[in-house]
């Protein structure tokens, strides 16, 4: 890591004069301590560590600049995108690996399942174009505003799409699980990582919690949510 020169005095562990530099400082020190690899950034990991550092600063009652919070929200958005859309693996080096493969592998015979894929529709193509356009054109600040707007939209969608139906769906699933286990984690209810599915599972939980059918507990910021049965 050759960033000391670039990062200036803030990278030397002194209190940064300019609080706007704090975000850079956090990232640089994460890299210096080997907590992130600048050559292979895992955005999910970086976001988590960045947010942890921000939380730490707040705990120490240090001033966190608005710019740092902006960076945090942008990272968070990138993390959400990364979770939503895993890029396909490329397998170019497979043959190379075969040569070195000292562990043999058995002739495992998987079950035979149908693997037809359907065609993409024109409206899906347009949908992706909208996403691509938005992504390019919005400045970071506008992206932040948009993020909030989207959250609001998502809530609105959840409301209009027959919330009771969603509540019933989640209720059923929880009943089934509580038959076998004492508590359920929110992550166990998530079958695909789309924002829509996550929200359509989360909102019903809030409804059920206000009806005192379940109790929700989140031990740490961004951590998993623990669901306990009260009166289902």
């Amino acid at each position: 890591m050759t960033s000391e020169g670039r990062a200036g005095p803030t990278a030397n562990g002194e209190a940064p004069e300019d609080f706007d530099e704090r975000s850079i400082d956090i990232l640089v020190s994460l890299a210096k301590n080997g907590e992130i690899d600048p050559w292979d950034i895992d955005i999910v990991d970086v976001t988590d560590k960045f947010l942890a550092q921000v939380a730490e600063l707040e705990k120490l009652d240090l001033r966190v600049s608005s710019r740092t919070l902006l960076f945090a929200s942008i990272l968070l958005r990138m993390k959400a995108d990364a979770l939503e859309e895993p890029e396909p693996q490329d397998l170019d080096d497979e043959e190379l690996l075969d040569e070195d493969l000292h562990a043999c592998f058995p002739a495992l015979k998987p079950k035979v399942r149908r693997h037809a894929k359907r065609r993409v529709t024109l409206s899906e193509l347009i949908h992706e174009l909208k996403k691509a356009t938005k992504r390019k054109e919005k400045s970071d600040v506008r992206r932040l505003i948009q993020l909030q707007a989207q959250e609001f939209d998502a809530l609105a969608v959840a409301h209009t799409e027959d919330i009771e139906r969603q509540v019933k769906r989640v209720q059923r699933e929880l009943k089934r699980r509580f038959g076998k286990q004492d508590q359920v984690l929110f992550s166990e209810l998530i079958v695909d990582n789309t924002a829509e599915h996550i929200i359509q599972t989360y909102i019903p939980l809030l409804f059920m919690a206000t009806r005192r059918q379940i109790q929700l507990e989140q031990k740490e910021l961004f951590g998993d949510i623990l669901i306990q049965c009260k009166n289902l």
Partner: protein
Amino acid sequence: MNDRDLVEAALFVAGRPLTLLELESMVSLDADVEEIVESLVEEYREKGALEIVQTDEDIVMQVKGEYADAVRTIAQRDLETPVLRTLAVIAFHQPVTQSKVAEIRGNKAYGHVHELEARKLVESEPYGRTRMLRTTKAFADYFGFETESLEEIKQKIGLLLR
């Protein structure tokens, strides 16, 4: 194992139309594949959400029309979302240079273009230090555009974008 079941299993796993010839290669020597297919077509017609359809040479197992829309979202798409997004950008901006696409979509776009060319949905020609990209006739067929004209395709996409 009986021949009826072998035909059924083959149609199921193929996920595409099979020819009588392909089916014949799977069953016992004395089996009458045409007869088996006919009786399967009848059997599936009577009950359930699936159907077996025979057209000239090909036989395919698929979801009956009335259920197709209801389950479409469950089926996997044959283009991954990031690749589809790159394709959308090309279709809208075409003719467009590869470097412009990479600017909009990031460096991953080079891999996507590679895949899209392999799928023949996009074609390219050298253009200075980069390549000029455009969609193909196969693209127009795939998305049901009645025209191959780049201008008309762009116009239509523009209208749909609103």
